[in-house]
């Protein structure tokens, strides 16, 4: 039984990365009916910006001659990285998606993919091919809860992700902008006629999604402190799968599906040889989608959707 709980803890951590990234996909999808295929690479950029911010703050603090506690650095890093990365998201929207709003959807998918490649290569050109290691901002301590080992990092990662998700939920439910987003997701043809600018809302959606991806990037850097320019590809596509699995445009669905994907991957790797992980995980997803073609919370294909 401890075996199960131990893996449950690991899966929660792994799933929270997927969930945070999948949220970005899902929100953009809800508004524009388009997937932002550069999102995985925005996650990567977020992690790198976080790395730069953490290093920069530490250097500044030591230059000023005062020592900041690590948690302050961490909080500052997360805030700075989320803030800066949201501009990357806005840029992606402005360059790759706004000119293509009326074009076939696949064209926008291609521009997204290409922006992703540019981000990867740009990073490679700027920083070189060596991997950088994320500074250890948290000293790892392990708690033993009845045979299950939990590190404070894991608690923090899951906690921060849940907080961010709750925050997003509150934002979408309670604020005026959130209401505008929901309205836009409901009908993007009529709502702009009511005085809500689709450009503002779309840019905002990209910004929020990118900020969440940046947070995921930093959390990932804390858990697995090796960053490389291509780390966003696999994560991005898997989170894309999670976003679809959750149902298009559904925030709750994306969160749940992100965690589910994490659970599937961790448990498959525990029970079977780990080389079979992708095989079994994707077979399960294929089966789910075959029998539930619209994901968990998605609405069935309808004429309203721009397909």
């Amino acid at each position, binding site marked *: 039984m401890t075996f199960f709980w131990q893996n449950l803890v690991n899966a929660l951590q792994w799933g929270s990365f997927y969930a945070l990234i999948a949220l970005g996909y899902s929100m953009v999808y809800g508004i524009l009916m388009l997937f932002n295929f550069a999102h995985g690479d925005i996650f990567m950029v977020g992690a790198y910006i976080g790395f730069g911010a953490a290093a920069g703050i530490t250097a500044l603090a030591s230059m000023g001659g005062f020592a900041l506690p690590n948690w302050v650095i961490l909080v500052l890093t997360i805030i700075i990285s989320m803030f800066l990365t949201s501009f990357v998201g806005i840029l992606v929207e402005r360059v790759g998606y706004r000119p293509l709003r009326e*074009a*076939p959807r696949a064209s926008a998918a291609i*521009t997204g*993919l290409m922006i992703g490649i540019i981000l990867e290569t740009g990073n490679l050109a700027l920083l070189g091919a060596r991997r950088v290691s994320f500074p250890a901002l948290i000293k790892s301590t392990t708690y033993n809860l009845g045979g299950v080992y939990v590190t404070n990092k894991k608690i923090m990662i899951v906690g921060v992700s849940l907080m961010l998700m709750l925050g997003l939920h509150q934002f979408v439910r309670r604020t005026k902008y959130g209401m505008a987003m929901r309205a836009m997701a409901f009908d993007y043809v009529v709502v702009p006629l009511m005085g809500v600018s689709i450009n503002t809302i779309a840019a905002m959606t990209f910004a929020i999604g990118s900020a969440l991806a940046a947070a995921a990037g930093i959390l990932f850097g804390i858990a697995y402190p090796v960053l490389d320019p291509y780390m966003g590809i*696999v994560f991005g596509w898997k989170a894309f799968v999670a976003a*679809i699995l959750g149902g298009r445009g559904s925030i709750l669905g994306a969160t749940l599906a992100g965690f589910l994907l994490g659970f599937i991957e961790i448990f498959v790797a525990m029970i079977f040889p780990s080389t079979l*992980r992708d095989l079994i995980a994707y077979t399960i997803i294929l089966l789910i*989608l075959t029998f539930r073609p619209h994901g968990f919370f998605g609405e069935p294909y309808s004429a309203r959707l721009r397909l």
Partner: protein
Amino acid sequence: MEADSGDLFEKMKLLLKKIRNSFSRVPLIGWLLGALIAVVLEYSLGESLADILMLPKIPVLFGFVIMLKKPLLIPSVIIFVLLIYALPISAVARLSAPLTNRLAAKLFSLPILISVVIHLGLLYAVLHLWSDISAYRVLTLKLTLIAVMVTLSLNVVNGYMGEFSCSHPGFMALGAYGASVVTVFLFANDKLFGTAILPSALGPFIFPLALIIGGMVAALGALFIAIPSFRTRGDYLAIISLAFMFIVKSMIENLEIVGGPRGLSSQPDYAGLPTVFLWTVACIWIINNFVRSTLGKALNAIRDDEMAANAMTVNTRRTKIVAFLFAAFWAGVAGGLFAHVLRYVNPGTFGLQKLAEVLAMVYFGGLNSVYGSIVGAVSLSLLSEALRPLEIFKWIIIPLLLILVMIYRPTGLIAFKEFNVMNLLKPKPMPEKED
């Protein structure tokens, strides 16, 4: 001064128009003749001309690589390209236009098959002589032709049927492994499958069969996507096909019998340039006929409105199955050729990067168009070879180019254009005077 430059500009425009007009009368066979003469020139004189111009060797890809590596040599490369390619091709094409037009008219009156075979023969001669200069050219040419096949087959699903299928690397992998297993099992002394079973003299005759088996394996795999496609389309199908691609890759990685993640090597060397060329021609011919048939038009109907198509007696399920299986078959054949050209495959080749590459070729060239696929595949493969000296900056320039194309021509360069062989081959006599 201002008026002067405007005048000059107008003059230039007129001149350009005149040149274009005079070249618009050259039939295809004239261009082929010009190209043939250019490659013959290069074959016989290229070496010495390169010496005179102080080039280390004949520029392999029209000098792009040399120009990017050693900017000092740019003038000599330009002179070389002008002397060997641009001048002879344009001069021969232009000057022989009356002659080639008469020839084209004569050929045009013959059965179309003969005319096509003659044109293809000329084209092959050009390609063969061109690629004979270096092994690098042969490899580039083969991979380009294979890219044409893959792009075309993906265009059937993504362009003509309007789905967003991400599974083509998976189909290619199935085809590559299917064909490789057959040939390695039968004709190669290999660690995995033991000694050869059949004499190697039979090899080239069995090879097409092996490719077809590879295609069939891929088509069988396509059933896993075709059947879910009855119930869903768009993004969910994209995910299903993406999952399929991951599954295939992961499955091959776990199959120790075909080498697992280390890959499968020692394929016999059957995929020469003629073989690849013939398969590519067959692929273009068959796919072009397919998309112009009733079934092909049914694909368009499904893309535009599935429900209406169904109401208009289009059997949507059958059409979808046929389209997926057909596209997968050709992707599989292309994969088989790919494996035999490189004589080594590993599952890592058929991943997300391949997917991005193939998708880029389809959407760059143009949806719903055989021309577009050919143009997209050829231009992107050559471009990525030509920009190789730029190293990683290549992967900034090519995506930027694609983004620009998507923004200004969202359906690709040459979209929705029929590939009409008759139109291509017909003579182009003097146009009637127009004012």
